[in-house]
């Protein structure tokens, strides 16, 4: 069976979740590969969530929030930019392809943009192939 990426999407309540909703109500088609989790703000996304998603078998993690300057909580998304930059470094050191985790800004009116982002990310992950963390960890304990 052909590989179908599984992408976990963390979307902020105020912009991106509404944006995704708009994509839906506007009948814009986008790949079904994304599983959306709504959070109040991208700053609520503990890097632990991203690592956990990857360890549990997600092929990619998409984080979407309000455009810089538009955060409902004034500076939540700025904190996310900082964490994301450092998280990219950490993922690189742990041998995980950087493009498996992506941060994008999607406003409440950008349903079309949301669909484009999901489409693009799905193709990127399809190109990378499946995330093997879970399988490799299981193989570790089998070796012992």
């Amino acid at each position, binding site marked *: 069976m052909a590989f179908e990426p599984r992408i976990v999407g963390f979307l902020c309540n105020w912009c991106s979740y509404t944006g995704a909703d708009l994509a839906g109500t506007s009948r814009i088609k986008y790949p079904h590969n994304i599983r959306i989790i709504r959070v109040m703000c991208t700053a609520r996304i503990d*890097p632990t969530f991203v690592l956990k998603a990857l360890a549990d078998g997600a092929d990619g993690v998409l984080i979407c929030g309000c455009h810089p300057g538009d955060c409902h909580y004034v500076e939540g998304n700025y904190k996310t930019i900082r964490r994301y930059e450092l*998280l990219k470094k950490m993922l690189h050191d742990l041998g995980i392809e950087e493009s498996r985790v992506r941060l994008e800004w999607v406003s409440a009116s950008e349903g079309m943009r949301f669909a484009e982002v999901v489409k693009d990310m799905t193709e990127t992950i399809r190109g990378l192939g499946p995330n093997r963390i879970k399988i490799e960890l299981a193989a570790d304990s089998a070796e012992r």
Partner: protein
Amino acid sequence: MADKKLQIALYWGAACGGCDVAVLDTNEFILDVAELADIRLWPIAADGKYEDIERMEDGELDLALYNGAVRNSENEEIAELLRKKSKVLIAFGSCSHLGGIPGLANFTTRDEIMKTAFLDNPSIEPGNQAVPVPKSEVSAGELEIPSFYKRVYKLDDVVDVDYFVPGCPPAPAQVKAVLTAVAKGELPPKGSVVGASDLAVCEDCGRKKSEKKIKRFYRPWEIIQDFDVCLLEQGILCAGPATRSGCGVRCPDTGLGCRGCYGPLPSVKDQGAKLLSAIASVIDSNDPEEIERIIADIPDFTALAYRFGLPASILQRSFRS
């Protein structure tokens, strides 16, 4: 238990020996231990053979302190043996608790380690390169040595552990408290982290804390620090916000950032991810390029974040192929 001496064993897996020294660091208390207990196995300090342990009844030992991570089949075999023979098995020190410094080996691979240690190493004479293998034929017959695992594990990855004593090494007061508790039979619920606080190092740190805004990170030797002010506020990396206290804040008090040896706070799964959150959010910039420049000043952040706990983290190891 006054009529019968406590039967104890101390063992080191993949360790530096510092935890054993920490037991000796209890000074004259060690003499009380000798009064109180029969030390049946302690490879670093006393005689005692594995066969002696094998001959014991199951549960004959009252207490086994296991320090060190699980790196090879011998470490695991003795962990299993001590588990069987002991009423209480304690993971003693960061390595057995979280993987510790040996756990940093999970950033690389077994092949790379073998290459560095036995092949590509300037101290090895040309023509004298040999990589150890579990079984080899020599003139006297077949020799067997423990097999080196693909990666490092913490103790409770391989056996059931009753208690965890964190620290690299655990503070002498903790060692005393643990031995006394076992002697008196006053034990906390199984699985507890013993001899440590449930709060972060920052809670016990006496430095003044206000709003943190960092434009540049420094190594401790690069600036003259103010000993009254939070290290992180001065741009010196400190794992205090993501680390369990109980150590007595010894590192920050001497001017060094906390290194995180007491491990994550209760209910935190991944100490490195929490430290990432804390450190990143104090960066004083909203511009991705500037943030990247500021982060570039941090030498090897990932190893800092998982200095003592890579095998205990969510990803457990690097996946670079």
